[in-house]
């Protein structure tokens, strides 16, 4: 970009004390990879593109859905059903035509991390699940990339900068120094289960993108080896220092070969549920359908079915050998727990969980109703 244009466009940043042309040039030459274009990814991408990051990469497998819109503010109603990275490309190119952009419409896995991370100066973790968080952490450690981490839960958020060497070249700590192993499934509810107000990932995503700018330009003190927890309800904020964990990390892959073989789903305690999670297409009209949501859950299913909340299932439901039951909830997560629970208690029954939950209701109706 011509210097005159740079000056006009970034005038407010250039005139900021302690920032200036030198810092702006660093942004313009920076390459930043963003893993996840969701509630955190949207503000991160938007503000980094606007601030003049030279090259952004975005990897996300999802399509825009209606329930994304209150927090994923890059997307609008007309984008529902479109691949997120395609919409991101449109919006960011319109916002800043000088931006170099690479997009991948699939999930970040180990092969992707080994292949793509080295082409970027730093990685921003804006994903929404533990398997990907550990995968990104380990990938950054293996490829020597700094990692700007953020995550949210209900009304609170966390931000940290991992794997960033200090000025003397001493390596930074990583996520496993705080949480060496993942919580078991269901222990920490994600946004789909626990709910979230859009402003929270907006705030935390802006803090996260600010950390990106600090790491790239060298201004201020990034949250290197520190974890910030912010509670929006009470405006409580706590920054804690992370000290190196004394133990090695037996569950962390230490070579590219180990990394490619490492099963992050298994590591995070996700059961093997092939054959239990089903699409609507396997259903037939005689199948017993049980909604495991708490009473009053919305939207209703609108089909002949029973209600047994997950919390009461164990005491109430008896299944005979060969009996087929389809469990349903809003997202498909609680129904999966229900199906696994019943599989364990009645091994000869055939318990299924509707993948995608009530959200896949329209296809369910088409399949079952005449």
């Amino acid at each position, binding site marked *: 970009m011509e210097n005159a244009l740079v000056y006009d466009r970034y005038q407010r940043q250039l005139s900021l004390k302690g920032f200036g042309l030198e810092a702006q040039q660093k942004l313009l030459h920076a390459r930043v990879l963003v893993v996840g274009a969701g509630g955190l990814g949207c503000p991160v991408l938007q503000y980094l593109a606007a601030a003049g990051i030279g090259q952004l990469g975005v990897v996300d497998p999802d399509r825009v859905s209606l329930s994304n819109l209150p927090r994923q503010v890059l997307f609008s109603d007309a984008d529902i059903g479109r691949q997120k990275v395609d919409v991101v490309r449109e919006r960011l190119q319109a916002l800043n035509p000088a931006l170099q952009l690479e997009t991948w419409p699939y999930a970040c896995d180990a092969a992707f991390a080994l292949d793509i991370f080295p082409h970027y100066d730093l990685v921003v973790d804006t994903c*929404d699940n533990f398997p990907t968080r550990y995968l990104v952490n380990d990938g950054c450690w293996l490829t020597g990339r700094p990692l700007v981490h953020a995550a949210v839960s209900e009304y609170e958020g*966390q931000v940290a900068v991992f794997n960033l060497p200090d000025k003397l070249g001493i390596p930074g700590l990583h996520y496993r120094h705080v949480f060496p192993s993942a919580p078991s499934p269901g222990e*920490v509810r994600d946004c789909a289960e626990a709910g979230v107000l859009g402003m929270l990932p907006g705030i935390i995503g802006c803090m996260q993108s600010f950390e990106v700018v600090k790491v790239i330009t060298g201004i201020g003190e990034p949250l290197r080896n520190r974890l910030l927890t912010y509670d929006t309800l009470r405006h409580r904020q706590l920054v804690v220092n*992370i000290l190196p964990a004394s133990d090695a990390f037996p569950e962390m892959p230490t070579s590219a070969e180990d990394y490619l073989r490492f099963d992050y789903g298994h590591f995070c305690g996700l059961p093997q549920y092939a054959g239990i999670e089903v699409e609507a297409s396997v259903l037939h009209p005689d199948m017993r359908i049980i909604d495991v949501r708490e009473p009053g859950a919305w939207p209703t299913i609108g089909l002949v079915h029973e209600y047994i909340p997950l919390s009461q299932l164990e005491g109430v439901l008896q299944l005979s050998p060969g009996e087929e039951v389809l469990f349903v909830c809003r997202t498909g997560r609680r129904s999966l727990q229900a199906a696994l629970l019943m599989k364990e208690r009645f091994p000869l029954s055939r318990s299924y969980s509707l993948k995608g939950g009530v959200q896949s209701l329209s296809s369910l109706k088409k399949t079952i109703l005449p």
Partner: protein
Amino acid sequence: MKGIIMVILVFGQLQDITGTDTLHIKQVEGKKQLSDALFELFPRLQETKFVIAIDRQIIDGDAPIGPNACIALLPPFSGG
């Protein structure tokens, strides 16, 4: 140390277990004793991943707790 009450900040979904964002419990001398006391009060914490920060430090293993220490219970978050 007798009679001194410690203030513990509770973050995230750990509040579902403790029922509050701020706990007050009798002073203990170290991190190990603190987790034992917490597990006795809230058995479900034993099945939950979280770290204890003492005076804004996350320390692996046991560590002493002085009077008026700032203590926080921090769980991992996954949402994005």
